Protein backbone atom coordinates (compact mmCIF):
# COMPACT_ATOMS: atom_id res chain seq x y z
CA UNK A 1 0.00 0.00 0.00
CA UNK A 2 1.38 3.39 -0.92
CA UNK A 3 1.93 5.92 1.81
CA UNK A 4 -0.47 8.53 0.42
CA UNK A 5 -3.21 5.90 0.04
CA UNK A 6 -2.71 4.93 3.69
CA UNK A 7 -2.99 8.60 4.68
CA UNK A 8 -6.24 8.84 2.76
CA UNK A 9 -7.73 5.78 4.45
CA UNK A 10 -6.85 6.93 7.96
CA UNK A 11 -8.09 10.47 7.26
CA UNK A 12 -11.39 9.08 5.92
CA UNK A 13 -11.80 6.85 8.98
CA UNK A 14 -11.21 9.72 11.41
CA UNK A 15 -13.58 12.00 9.51
CA UNK A 16 -16.30 9.33 9.48
CA UNK A 17 -15.97 8.81 13.23
CA UNK A 18 -16.25 12.55 13.81
CA UNK A 19 -19.35 12.77 11.60
CA UNK A 20 -20.88 9.82 13.44
CA UNK A 21 -20.18 11.55 16.76
CA UNK A 22 -21.84 14.71 15.43
CA UNK A 23 -25.07 12.76 14.86
CA UNK A 24 -25.07 11.91 18.57
CA UNK A 25 -25.24 15.58 19.54
CA UNK A 26 -28.70 16.33 21.00
CA UNK A 27 -30.83 18.95 19.23
CA UNK A 28 -30.92 19.99 15.58
CA UNK A 29 -28.05 21.37 13.54
CA UNK A 30 -28.62 24.79 12.11
CA UNK A 31 -26.40 24.92 9.05
CA UNK A 32 -28.69 27.24 7.10
CA UNK A 33 -28.22 30.06 9.63
CA UNK A 34 -24.48 29.79 9.34
CA UNK A 35 -24.58 29.44 5.54
CA UNK A 36 -26.03 32.96 5.31
CA UNK A 37 -22.79 34.28 6.75
CA UNK A 38 -20.52 32.29 4.40
CA UNK A 39 -19.07 35.51 3.05
CA UNK A 40 -17.82 36.33 6.53
CA UNK A 41 -15.99 33.01 6.72
CA UNK A 42 -14.43 33.52 3.32
CA UNK A 43 -13.24 37.06 4.00
CA UNK A 44 -11.88 36.03 7.42
CA UNK A 45 -10.10 33.06 5.91
CA UNK A 46 -8.50 35.29 3.26
CA UNK A 47 -7.34 37.77 5.90
CA UNK A 48 -5.80 34.93 7.92
CA UNK A 49 -4.17 33.58 4.76
CA UNK A 50 -2.66 36.96 3.86
CA UNK A 51 -1.50 37.75 7.40
CA UNK A 52 -0.01 34.31 7.86
CA UNK A 53 1.83 34.36 4.56
CA UNK A 54 3.37 37.76 5.28
CA UNK A 55 4.25 36.80 8.87
CA UNK A 56 5.63 33.48 7.66
CA UNK A 57 8.13 35.07 5.28
CA UNK A 58 9.06 37.76 7.79
CA UNK A 59 9.48 35.32 10.67
CA UNK A 60 11.88 33.15 8.68
CA UNK A 61 13.97 36.24 7.92
CA UNK A 62 13.85 37.39 11.56
CA UNK A 63 14.70 33.87 12.74
CA UNK A 64 17.77 33.69 10.52
CA UNK A 65 19.07 37.12 11.46
CA UNK A 66 18.53 36.54 15.19
CA UNK A 67 20.17 33.10 14.89
CA UNK A 68 23.24 34.84 13.47
CA UNK A 69 23.08 37.33 16.37
CA UNK A 70 22.98 34.42 18.83
CA UNK A 71 26.14 32.99 17.30
CA UNK A 72 27.96 36.33 17.03
CA UNK A 73 31.43 36.85 18.53
CA UNK A 74 30.55 40.37 19.65
CA UNK A 75 28.98 40.05 23.15
CA UNK A 76 26.65 43.03 22.60
CA UNK A 77 25.20 41.50 19.45
CA UNK A 78 24.87 38.11 21.11
CA UNK A 79 23.16 39.73 24.11
CA UNK A 80 20.71 41.57 21.83
CA UNK A 81 19.71 38.29 20.22
CA UNK A 82 19.51 36.42 23.51
CA UNK A 83 17.38 39.04 25.29
CA UNK A 84 15.04 39.30 22.29
CA UNK A 85 14.50 35.54 22.29
CA UNK A 86 13.99 35.31 26.05
CA UNK A 87 11.53 38.22 26.24
CA UNK A 88 9.47 37.00 23.32
CA UNK A 89 9.42 33.37 24.37
CA UNK A 90 8.77 34.19 28.00
CA UNK A 91 5.67 36.36 27.51
CA UNK A 92 2.23 35.54 26.07
CA UNK A 93 1.53 36.51 22.47
CA UNK A 94 -1.69 38.11 23.70
CA UNK A 95 0.28 40.62 25.79
CA UNK A 96 2.76 41.22 22.99
CA UNK A 97 -0.08 42.06 20.62
CA UNK A 98 -1.67 44.50 23.07
CA UNK A 99 1.63 46.17 23.94
CA UNK A 100 2.74 46.13 20.31
CA UNK A 101 -0.40 47.82 19.07
CA UNK A 102 -1.39 50.15 21.89
CA UNK A 103 2.09 51.10 23.13
CA UNK A 104 4.88 50.56 20.62
CA UNK A 105 2.97 51.13 17.37
CA UNK A 106 1.26 54.10 18.96
CA UNK A 107 4.63 55.55 20.00
CA UNK A 108 6.06 55.31 16.49
CA UNK A 109 2.83 56.44 14.85
CA UNK A 110 1.99 53.17 13.12
CA UNK A 111 -1.78 52.94 12.79
CA UNK A 112 -2.46 50.10 10.39
CA UNK A 113 -3.50 47.22 12.63
CA UNK A 114 -2.89 44.65 9.91
CA UNK A 115 0.72 45.75 9.59
CA UNK A 116 1.21 45.82 13.36
CA UNK A 117 -0.46 42.44 13.76
CA UNK A 118 1.71 40.87 11.09
CA UNK A 119 4.87 42.38 12.58
CA UNK A 120 4.10 41.20 16.12
CA UNK A 121 3.18 37.73 14.91
CA UNK A 122 6.38 37.52 12.86
CA UNK A 123 8.47 38.77 15.79
CA UNK A 124 6.84 36.18 18.04
CA UNK A 125 7.41 33.28 15.69
CA UNK A 126 10.86 34.59 14.71
CA UNK A 127 12.15 34.09 18.25
CA UNK A 128 11.31 30.39 18.11
CA UNK A 129 12.71 30.14 14.59
CA UNK A 130 15.96 31.73 15.77
CA UNK A 131 16.58 28.94 18.27
CA UNK A 132 15.73 26.32 15.64
CA UNK A 133 18.10 27.89 13.09
CA UNK A 134 20.82 28.31 15.71
CA UNK A 135 20.65 24.61 16.50
CA UNK A 136 20.85 23.78 12.81
CA UNK A 137 23.77 26.11 12.14
CA UNK A 138 25.69 24.78 15.15
CA UNK A 139 25.19 21.23 13.94
CA UNK A 140 27.26 21.84 10.81
CA UNK A 141 30.81 20.62 11.53
CA UNK A 142 33.55 23.22 11.81
CA UNK A 143 35.46 21.40 9.09
CA UNK A 144 32.88 22.61 6.57
CA UNK A 145 33.71 26.24 7.36
CA UNK A 146 37.39 25.35 7.15
CA UNK A 147 36.90 23.81 3.77
CA UNK A 148 34.94 26.84 2.56
CA UNK A 149 37.70 29.16 3.76
CA UNK A 150 40.35 26.98 2.15
CA UNK A 151 38.84 27.41 -1.30
CA UNK A 152 38.74 31.16 -0.78
CA UNK A 153 35.04 31.80 -0.13
CA UNK A 154 34.18 34.93 1.82
CA UNK A 155 32.36 34.53 5.13
CA UNK A 156 29.05 35.45 3.51
CA UNK A 157 29.58 33.05 0.59
CA UNK A 158 30.52 30.30 3.00
CA UNK A 159 27.30 30.91 4.94
CA UNK A 160 25.10 31.12 1.83
CA UNK A 161 26.61 28.33 -0.26
CA UNK A 162 27.90 25.85 2.31
CA UNK A 163 26.45 26.26 5.80
CA UNK A 164 22.88 27.42 5.18
CA UNK A 165 21.87 24.76 2.63
CA UNK A 166 23.03 22.05 5.01
CA UNK A 167 21.39 23.66 8.04
CA UNK A 168 18.07 24.17 6.23
CA UNK A 169 17.79 20.46 5.63
CA UNK A 170 18.30 19.79 9.32
CA UNK A 171 15.77 22.32 10.56
CA UNK A 172 13.05 21.92 7.95
CA UNK A 173 10.71 19.67 10.00
CA UNK A 174 10.99 21.92 13.06
CA UNK A 175 10.46 25.06 10.97
CA UNK A 176 7.36 23.56 9.35
CA UNK A 177 5.95 22.80 12.80
CA UNK A 178 6.63 26.36 13.89
CA UNK A 179 4.92 27.76 10.79
CA UNK A 180 1.82 25.65 11.47
CA UNK A 181 1.77 27.12 14.99
CA UNK A 182 2.11 30.60 13.51
CA UNK A 183 -1.00 30.12 11.39
CA UNK A 184 -3.03 29.00 14.39
CA UNK A 185 -1.57 31.71 16.62
CA UNK A 186 -2.83 34.29 14.13
CA UNK A 187 -6.28 33.72 15.68
CA UNK A 188 -5.11 35.90 18.60
CA UNK A 189 -4.94 38.92 16.29
CA UNK A 190 -8.65 39.34 17.04
CA UNK A 191 -7.63 41.12 20.27
CA UNK A 192 -6.54 44.12 18.25
CA UNK A 193 -9.78 43.93 16.29
CA UNK A 194 -8.49 42.39 13.10
CA UNK A 195 -11.33 40.60 11.32
CA UNK A 196 -9.47 37.39 10.80
CA UNK A 197 -10.92 33.91 10.49
CA UNK A 198 -11.47 33.13 14.18
CA UNK A 199 -12.96 36.51 15.06
CA UNK A 200 -15.39 36.25 12.16
CA UNK A 201 -16.41 32.74 13.19
CA UNK A 202 -17.03 33.99 16.71
CA UNK A 203 -19.18 36.81 15.32
CA UNK A 204 -21.20 34.35 13.25
CA UNK A 205 -21.71 32.37 16.45
CA UNK A 206 -22.99 35.44 18.27
CA UNK A 207 -25.39 36.23 15.40
CA UNK A 208 -26.75 32.68 15.01
CA UNK A 209 -26.26 31.09 18.45
CA UNK A 210 -25.06 28.02 16.49
CA UNK A 211 -21.75 27.39 18.20
CA UNK A 212 -20.67 24.10 16.67
CA UNK A 213 -21.86 25.09 13.20
CA UNK A 214 -19.74 28.23 13.45
CA UNK A 215 -16.60 26.54 14.68
CA UNK A 216 -16.53 23.36 12.57
CA UNK A 217 -15.86 25.42 9.40
CA UNK A 218 -13.09 27.10 11.39
CA UNK A 219 -11.31 23.78 11.92
CA UNK A 220 -11.68 22.90 8.25
CA UNK A 221 -10.45 26.35 7.19
CA UNK A 222 -7.29 26.09 9.32
CA UNK A 223 -6.60 22.60 8.01
CA UNK A 224 -6.83 24.02 4.48
CA UNK A 225 -3.97 26.35 5.44
CA UNK A 226 -1.81 23.97 7.45
CA UNK A 227 -2.06 20.78 5.39
CA UNK A 228 -0.52 22.29 2.22
CA UNK A 229 2.24 23.69 4.41
CA UNK A 230 3.02 20.27 5.87
CA UNK A 231 2.91 18.72 2.41
CA UNK A 232 5.28 21.36 1.03
CA UNK A 233 7.65 20.81 3.94
CA UNK A 234 7.70 17.04 3.33
CA UNK A 235 8.34 17.61 -0.36
CA UNK A 236 11.18 20.03 0.43
CA UNK A 237 12.63 17.57 2.94
CA UNK A 238 12.72 14.96 0.23
CA UNK A 239 14.36 17.20 -2.34
CA UNK A 240 16.92 18.43 0.21
CA UNK A 241 17.69 14.97 1.52
CA UNK A 242 21.07 13.34 1.16
CA UNK A 243 23.16 11.09 3.34
CA UNK A 244 25.91 12.66 5.34
Amino acid sequence: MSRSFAHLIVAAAVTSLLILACFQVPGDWNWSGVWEYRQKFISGWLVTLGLSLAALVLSVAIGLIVALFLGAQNPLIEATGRIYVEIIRGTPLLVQLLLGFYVIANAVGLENRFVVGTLVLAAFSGAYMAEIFRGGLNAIPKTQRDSARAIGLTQWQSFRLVILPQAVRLVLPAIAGQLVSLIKDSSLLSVIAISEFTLNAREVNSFTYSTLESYVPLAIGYLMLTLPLSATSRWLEKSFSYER
Partner: protein
Amino acid sequence: MRLTIKDLTQTFGTTRVLDKLSIETGRVNSLALVGPSGGGKSTLLRILAGLDIPTSGTVTFDGTTLQRDEVNLRLYRRTVGTVFQSYNLFPHLSARENLILPLVHVHRLSRDEAIARVEEPLRRFQLHEHADKRPAELSGGQNQRIAILRAMVVRPKRLFLDEPTSALDPEMTAEVLDMIEGLKESGTDFVLVTHAMNFARRVADEVAFIGDGTVLSHGPAESVFENSKNSRVAAFFQQVLR
Protein backbone atom coordinates in the same frame (compact mmCIF):
# COMPACT_ATOMS: atom_id res chain seq x y z
CA MET B 1 58.91 26.79 -4.67
CA ARG B 2 61.31 28.14 -2.12
CA LEU B 3 60.05 28.28 1.47
CA THR B 4 61.56 30.26 4.30
CA ILE B 5 60.08 30.10 7.80
CA LYS B 6 61.49 32.28 10.55
CA ASP B 7 60.86 31.81 14.27
CA LEU B 8 57.33 30.57 13.78
CA THR B 9 55.45 30.25 17.06
CA GLN B 10 51.86 29.20 17.56
CA THR B 11 50.23 29.04 20.96
CA PHE B 12 46.71 27.93 21.86
CA GLY B 13 46.01 29.21 25.36
CA THR B 14 49.01 28.11 27.36
CA THR B 15 50.00 25.34 24.95
CA ARG B 16 52.89 26.17 22.65
CA VAL B 17 52.36 24.01 19.58
CA LEU B 18 55.07 25.56 17.42
CA ASP B 19 58.14 26.92 19.13
CA LYS B 20 60.33 29.30 17.11
CA LEU B 21 60.29 26.92 14.19
CA SER B 22 62.62 27.92 11.35
CA ILE B 23 63.41 26.27 8.06
CA GLU B 24 64.84 27.27 4.72
CA THR B 25 64.32 24.98 1.76
CA GLY B 26 66.15 24.96 -1.52
CA ARG B 27 64.18 25.27 -4.76
CA VAL B 28 61.94 22.23 -4.37
CA ASN B 29 58.92 20.75 -6.03
CA SER B 30 57.70 18.93 -2.98
CA LEU B 31 58.28 19.11 0.74
CA ALA B 32 57.12 16.41 3.17
CA LEU B 33 56.51 17.14 6.84
CA VAL B 34 56.87 14.01 8.92
CA GLY B 35 57.15 13.21 12.60
CA PRO B 36 55.19 12.02 15.62
CA SER B 37 51.53 12.92 16.13
CA GLY B 38 51.04 16.07 18.16
CA GLY B 39 54.41 17.40 17.06
CA GLY B 40 52.96 20.39 15.22
CA LYS B 41 52.94 19.23 11.57
CA SER B 42 49.30 19.96 10.89
CA THR B 43 49.43 23.25 12.77
CA LEU B 44 52.35 24.27 10.59
CA LEU B 45 50.54 23.21 7.43
CA ARG B 46 47.46 25.25 8.37
CA ILE B 47 49.62 28.33 8.72
CA LEU B 48 51.36 27.64 5.40
CA ALA B 49 47.93 27.24 3.77
CA GLY B 50 46.79 30.59 5.16
CA LEU B 51 44.08 29.05 7.34
CA ASP B 52 45.55 30.14 10.67
CA ILE B 53 47.56 33.17 11.73
CA PRO B 54 50.64 32.35 13.80
CA THR B 55 51.27 33.98 17.16
CA SER B 56 54.59 35.25 15.84
CA GLY B 57 57.14 34.59 13.13
CA THR B 58 57.01 34.76 9.34
CA VAL B 59 56.40 32.47 6.40
CA THR B 60 57.83 33.40 3.00
CA PHE B 61 57.10 31.58 -0.25
CA ASP B 62 59.25 32.56 -3.25
CA GLY B 63 60.08 35.89 -1.69
CA THR B 64 56.51 36.81 -0.72
CA THR B 65 55.74 36.90 2.99
CA LEU B 66 52.27 35.82 4.14
CA GLN B 67 50.20 38.66 5.56
CA ARG B 68 48.59 38.48 8.97
CA ASP B 69 45.10 39.77 8.17
CA GLU B 70 42.10 37.76 7.05
CA VAL B 71 41.43 39.77 3.87
CA ASN B 72 44.94 39.28 2.48
CA LEU B 73 45.04 35.70 3.66
CA ARG B 74 41.81 35.02 1.78
CA LEU B 75 43.37 36.43 -1.39
CA TYR B 76 46.36 34.17 -0.73
CA ARG B 77 44.15 31.10 -0.17
CA ARG B 78 42.60 31.71 -3.57
CA THR B 79 46.00 31.12 -5.15
CA VAL B 80 46.71 27.84 -3.38
CA GLY B 81 44.87 24.57 -2.74
CA THR B 82 44.35 22.64 0.50
CA VAL B 83 43.39 19.00 0.97
CA PHE B 84 42.26 17.77 4.37
CA GLN B 85 42.57 14.40 6.06
CA SER B 86 38.80 13.89 6.18
CA TYR B 87 38.20 15.27 2.65
CA ASN B 88 35.76 17.95 3.88
CA LEU B 89 33.77 17.87 0.66
CA PHE B 90 30.40 19.61 0.77
CA PRO B 91 27.90 16.79 1.45
CA HIS B 92 24.91 18.59 -0.08
CA LEU B 93 26.58 18.91 -3.49
CA SER B 94 27.47 16.30 -6.07
CA ALA B 95 31.13 15.58 -6.78
CA ARG B 96 30.97 17.75 -9.90
CA GLU B 97 29.28 20.62 -8.06
CA ASN B 98 32.00 20.42 -5.41
CA LEU B 99 34.56 21.03 -8.13
CA ILE B 100 32.59 23.77 -9.85
CA LEU B 101 31.79 25.79 -6.73
CA PRO B 102 35.21 27.46 -6.26
CA LEU B 103 35.57 28.03 -10.01
CA VAL B 104 32.26 29.88 -10.26
CA HIS B 105 32.11 31.68 -6.92
CA VAL B 106 35.78 32.43 -6.30
CA HIS B 107 37.45 32.42 -9.69
CA ARG B 108 34.52 33.94 -11.59
CA LEU B 109 34.26 31.41 -14.41
CA SER B 110 30.85 31.06 -16.01
CA ARG B 111 29.04 27.84 -15.13
CA ASP B 112 29.63 26.46 -18.63
CA GLU B 113 33.34 27.26 -18.50
CA ALA B 114 33.58 25.62 -15.08
CA ILE B 115 31.79 22.48 -16.25
CA ALA B 116 34.09 22.28 -19.25
CA ARG B 117 37.18 22.73 -17.12
CA VAL B 118 36.38 19.93 -14.65
CA GLU B 119 35.41 17.40 -17.31
CA GLU B 120 38.93 16.46 -18.43
CA PRO B 121 40.39 15.92 -14.93
CA LEU B 122 37.30 13.91 -13.92
CA ARG B 123 37.93 11.61 -16.89
CA ARG B 124 41.67 11.42 -16.36
CA PHE B 125 41.17 10.15 -12.82
CA GLN B 126 38.26 7.84 -13.74
CA LEU B 127 35.86 9.83 -11.65
CA HIS B 128 33.47 11.04 -14.36
CA GLU B 129 31.10 8.10 -13.82
CA HIS B 130 30.70 9.23 -10.24
CA ALA B 131 30.54 12.95 -10.90
CA ASP B 132 26.82 13.23 -10.22
CA LYS B 133 26.96 11.33 -6.94
CA ARG B 134 27.11 13.01 -3.57
CA PRO B 135 30.09 12.37 -1.26
CA ALA B 136 28.13 9.91 0.90
CA GLU B 137 27.67 7.69 -2.16
CA LEU B 138 31.42 7.57 -2.92
CA SER B 139 34.21 5.57 -1.33
CA GLY B 140 36.80 7.26 0.87
CA GLY B 141 39.39 7.05 -1.88
CA GLN B 142 37.03 8.54 -4.44
CA ASN B 143 36.15 11.33 -2.03
CA GLN B 144 39.77 12.14 -1.37
CA ARG B 145 40.55 12.16 -5.08
CA ILE B 146 37.63 14.54 -5.66
CA ALA B 147 38.99 16.69 -2.83
CA ILE B 148 42.41 16.78 -4.48
CA LEU B 149 40.78 17.66 -7.80
CA ARG B 150 38.80 20.44 -6.12
CA ALA B 151 42.07 21.91 -4.96
CA MET B 152 43.68 21.42 -8.39
CA VAL B 153 41.04 22.64 -10.85
CA VAL B 154 41.57 26.24 -9.76
CA ARG B 155 45.17 25.87 -11.03
CA PRO B 156 46.82 26.76 -7.74
CA LYS B 157 50.42 27.85 -7.33
CA ARG B 158 50.91 25.03 -4.85
CA LEU B 159 48.98 22.44 -2.87
CA PHE B 160 48.91 21.67 0.83
CA LEU B 161 47.96 18.12 1.73
CA ASP B 162 47.24 17.29 5.36
CA GLU B 163 47.56 13.54 5.93
CA PRO B 164 45.52 12.82 2.80
CA THR B 165 45.60 9.05 3.25
CA SER B 166 45.34 8.50 6.99
CA ALA B 167 41.55 8.03 6.88
CA LEU B 168 41.77 5.47 4.07
CA ASP B 169 42.20 1.71 3.87
CA PRO B 170 45.30 0.38 2.04
CA GLU B 171 43.66 -0.08 -1.35
CA MET B 172 42.23 3.43 -1.39
CA THR B 173 45.49 4.79 -0.05
CA ALA B 174 47.22 3.46 -3.16
CA GLU B 175 44.85 5.27 -5.54
CA VAL B 176 45.31 8.57 -3.71
CA LEU B 177 49.09 8.19 -3.51
CA ASP B 178 49.18 7.48 -7.25
CA MET B 179 47.36 10.73 -7.82
CA ILE B 180 49.80 12.68 -5.62
CA GLU B 181 52.69 11.09 -7.45
CA GLY B 182 51.06 12.34 -10.64
CA LEU B 183 51.18 15.84 -9.18
CA LYS B 184 54.91 15.56 -8.88
CA GLU B 185 55.25 14.43 -12.48
CA SER B 186 53.09 17.32 -13.68
CA GLY B 187 55.34 19.77 -11.85
CA THR B 188 52.75 20.96 -9.31
CA ASP B 189 54.44 22.16 -6.11
CA PHE B 190 53.12 20.70 -2.90
CA VAL B 191 53.69 20.47 0.83
CA LEU B 192 52.57 17.16 2.30
CA VAL B 193 52.00 16.11 5.89
CA THR B 194 52.10 12.34 6.02
CA HIS B 195 52.69 9.23 8.06
CA ALA B 196 53.38 7.20 4.90
CA MET B 197 57.15 7.29 5.29
CA ASN B 198 58.10 5.26 2.26
CA PHE B 199 55.89 7.41 0.12
CA ALA B 200 57.39 10.59 1.57
CA ARG B 201 60.81 9.26 0.78
CA ARG B 202 59.78 8.53 -2.79
CA VAL B 203 58.02 11.77 -3.71
CA ALA B 204 59.52 14.48 -1.54
CA ASP B 205 62.50 16.51 -2.70
CA GLU B 206 63.06 17.56 0.88
CA VAL B 207 61.77 16.20 4.17
CA ALA B 208 61.39 18.08 7.44
CA PHE B 209 61.01 16.11 10.64
CA ILE B 210 58.81 18.09 13.00
CA GLY B 211 58.69 17.23 16.70
CA ASP B 212 57.93 19.21 19.85
CA GLY B 213 56.95 22.18 17.71
CA THR B 214 60.26 22.57 15.99
CA VAL B 215 62.36 21.15 13.15
CA LEU B 216 64.42 18.25 14.46
CA SER B 217 65.88 17.31 11.10
CA HIS B 218 65.62 18.70 7.59
CA GLY B 219 67.17 18.01 4.22
CA PRO B 220 66.93 15.73 1.19
CA ALA B 221 64.81 12.64 1.95
CA GLU B 222 67.72 10.20 2.16
CA SER B 223 69.68 12.28 4.63
CA VAL B 224 66.71 12.71 6.97
CA PHE B 225 65.57 9.09 6.81
CA GLU B 226 68.91 7.41 7.06
CA ASN B 227 71.57 9.68 8.37
CA SER B 228 69.83 11.96 10.82
CA LYS B 229 72.18 12.97 13.61
CA ASN B 230 69.28 13.77 15.90
CA SER B 231 68.80 10.78 18.21
CA ARG B 232 65.01 11.30 18.52
CA VAL B 233 64.62 11.28 14.76
CA ALA B 234 66.79 8.21 14.37
CA ALA B 235 64.81 6.40 17.09
CA PHE B 236 61.52 7.39 15.47
CA PHE B 237 62.53 6.00 12.10
CA GLN B 238 63.92 2.87 13.65
CA GLN B 239 60.51 2.38 15.22
CA VAL B 240 58.34 3.11 12.16
CA LEU B 241 60.52 1.75 9.36
CA ARG B 242 61.49 -1.59 10.84
